[in-house]
């Protein structure tokens, strides 16, 4: 890859800024919002956005700006973990299907297709019904629900790499199966995985928020975006800022991850 072709577009630069802000918010929330996200102040309930409260306050007088910033850690951690679980599982399935004997490929592919037939959120809900609500189970649920989509992509990548002429050349040189998988197939698939992971991160944040919104993930008063949305829903007609700003955070992080993922994908392709 030549470093010259890496000039970001305006959208990508913007997405980068959003992502940096998110990371800062996730690791050092105090830098952006020094207040306590759980500090209650009855007298300041339902304040509209102002200089004192940038995003307004909620029904207990908690500062929504502070809560959105502090919620980033929770939302991102769950998002990253869920994506990691999804892609990890998918890599195993994809490798098994892509490299295994025919019957194994057949079996794995059918299994993935059955999973695929369920809408992802439904699959996640099923899992939570079995394991009970909570942060951990909603994370695992989202990971499981996103795995089939990744598995299909990884399988086709593995197949394509495994039938490439350079793999044949390696066989002629006397290299074994394991050697070929670790030196040729995996590294070539990883490049594509990186893009998938970035794209998937945005998706996972939305899903985790959806589950929290339904009351199946993080529960109030935790500062989690989906949970905040759910809490603000009751007041949406009168106090729009309670749902608008957490929602904006979800949309912005998902969009930023997607834009960056696409950017990397585009450059990968032109480099190949």
């Amino acid at each position, binding site marked *: 890859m030549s470093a010259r072709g890496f000039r970001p577009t305006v959208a990508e630069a913007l997405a980068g800024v959003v992502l940096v802000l998110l990371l800062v918010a996730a690791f050092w929330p105090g830098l952006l919002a020094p207040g306590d996200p759980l500090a209650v102040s009855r007298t300041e309930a339902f304040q509209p956005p102002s200089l004192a409260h940038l995003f307004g306050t909620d029904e207990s007088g908690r500062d929504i700006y502070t809560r959105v910033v502090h919620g980033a850690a929770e939302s991102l951690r769950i998002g990253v973990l869920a994506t990691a679980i999804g892609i990890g599982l998918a890599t195993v399935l994809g490798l098994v299907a892509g490299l295994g004997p025919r019957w194994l490929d057949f079996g794995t592919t059918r299994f993935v297709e059955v999973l695929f037939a369920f809408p992802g959120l439904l699959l996640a809900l099923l899992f939570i019904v079995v394991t009970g609500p909570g942060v951990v189970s909603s994370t695992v649920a989202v990971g499981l629900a996103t795995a089939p989509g990744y598995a299909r992509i990884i399988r086709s990548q593995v197949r394509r790499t495994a039938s*490439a*002429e*350079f793999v*044949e*050349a390696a*066989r*002629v*040189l*006397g*290299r*074994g199966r394991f*050697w070929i998988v670790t*030196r*040729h197939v995996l*590294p*070539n698939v990883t*490049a594509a995985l990186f893009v998938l992971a970035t794209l998937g991160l945005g998706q996972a944040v939305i899903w985790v928020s959806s589950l929290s919104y339904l009351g199946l993930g993080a529960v109030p008063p935790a500062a989690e975006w989906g949970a905040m949305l759910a809490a603000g829903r009751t007041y949406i007609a009168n106090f729009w800022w309670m749902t608008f700003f957490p929602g904006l955070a979800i949309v912005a992080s998902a969009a930023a991850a997607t834009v960056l993922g696409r950017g990397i994908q585009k450059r990968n392709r032109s480099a*190949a």
Partner: protein
Amino acid sequence: MSGAVLRVDDLAVSFGGRRVVDGVSFEVAAGECVAIVGESGSGKSVTARSVLGLAGDGARVTAAALTVAGEAVLGLSGRRLRRLRGGTVGFIAQDALVSLDPLRPVGREIADTLALHTDLDAAARRERTLELLRRVGLDDPELRARQRPGQLSGGQRQRALIAAGIAADPALVIADEPTTALDQPVQAGVLRLLGQLRDEGTGVLLISHDLAVVRGVADRVLVMTDGALVEEGTPAEVLGHPRHPYTKALVAAVPAGRPRGVPLLDAAAADADSGGRRNSRRTGAHEPTTPPLDGSDVLMSVSGVRRVFHVAGRDIVAADDVSLTLRAGRTLGLVGESGSGKSTTARLLLGLEQPDAGEVTLLGEPWSPGPESARRARRPLVGAVFQDALSSFDPRWTVGTVLADAVTRGRSLRPGPVRAEITALLGTVGLDADVAARRPLHLSGGQRQRVSIARALAADPRVLILDEPVSALDVSVQAQVLDLLDRLQRERNLAYLLITHDLGVALHMSDDLAVLQHGRVVEHGPASTVLEDPQHPYARRLREAAGL
């Protein structure tokens, strides 16, 4: 010759300040076939496309005069240009598979041209379409007109494309590498068709890199290099007595008719091309060094091998009772059309494909069929060079990584510790040491193939399987690689299996020849007897097609 259908005077084309065509002038008269020959990047295709206003996005085309049938092309409006294309000028592209819409029957494609450029009614167009298909030599035109490109063979597709190109009775036909993708016997048919068009009064502008193609059909040959015409004359003059140094090198690089063992390029030219690494030893023919046939030097032996593929419920016999022998220091040329089973045979020898019947032995020991584990230890004895060198390298690896892997037999991918071996290998194939830091993607076709040969040599093999090693290369680069292979064979006493569709290459390189048709060896023996006195009708057809 008064009626010039195409007049080009001082044509220049540049892309973003880079001149790719510079001051080209020529004429094509009615009933004349003019050929432009040159290697990739010489600007020949851009010249041809400029005539149609298709030089490409961002191209700046200027000319003192550029007229087709008396009409100036430069400055024509889009609408007038479209009238010109397909109407006054027929264009025949190189690859019919990508030039024809896969979802439309070829008859429709031709009828469309007629609808655009003639005022025939539907019934008359249909009549004319069938007539055209018959004229380009397709049997059963009614059926062909209904078929889609995917249902036709390569030669049939190319003929259909020509039919579409000549549908509106153009005054000028431009054929850009019309036969490159075709097997030799099919090639000959297409060329005859072009010759026929010319005889009927059409001007033909033929673009080709292949001197043999040009020789057969052109009235005049223009040699192009670096965007300029360097020589012009009849084929006999240009190819028989080239004057310009570039033409001389080009003609000398053609392997057809050059005896076995004679280097195609003289030492001086080769030195200049490969950075002075070539041995200065100037050798003539080396007939005596070919070892005698006494059986002790048999390295690889194939006996009665059969391989059948089951595709969509049909059995395709790719190899049927194939028996071959590879001997140290000798080359076995394997020739045949595409689909005749050449590549399957190579894969059987490489143990990439298991035979359904018969067996392959290496140094007298069983090689295939059998489990891969039984072959692995002896893999270093058999090397391979593939047609498409680029895709035979991991796209993430540099040349250094590729060779480090080959030198250490997979134990390490780091070039550092084996720098000396890598440099030596690169030197053997005539490349500089600094190539190691580069990626194959950024090398030229000839350099890639050299790296591929270096990789095959790293394990010190006794046998090399060469699957179309030069068919993707320009003639002069092809000559360098062939000379390199020839030298390596002599120095290392290697046995070669050379697979090629080019009889010229096969004859120049081979001691023995085997002709493959429908998976069967129909002719097999010393190169001199197989093609000088072919017994099998198919081998005879091959020989005629090659014009030997």
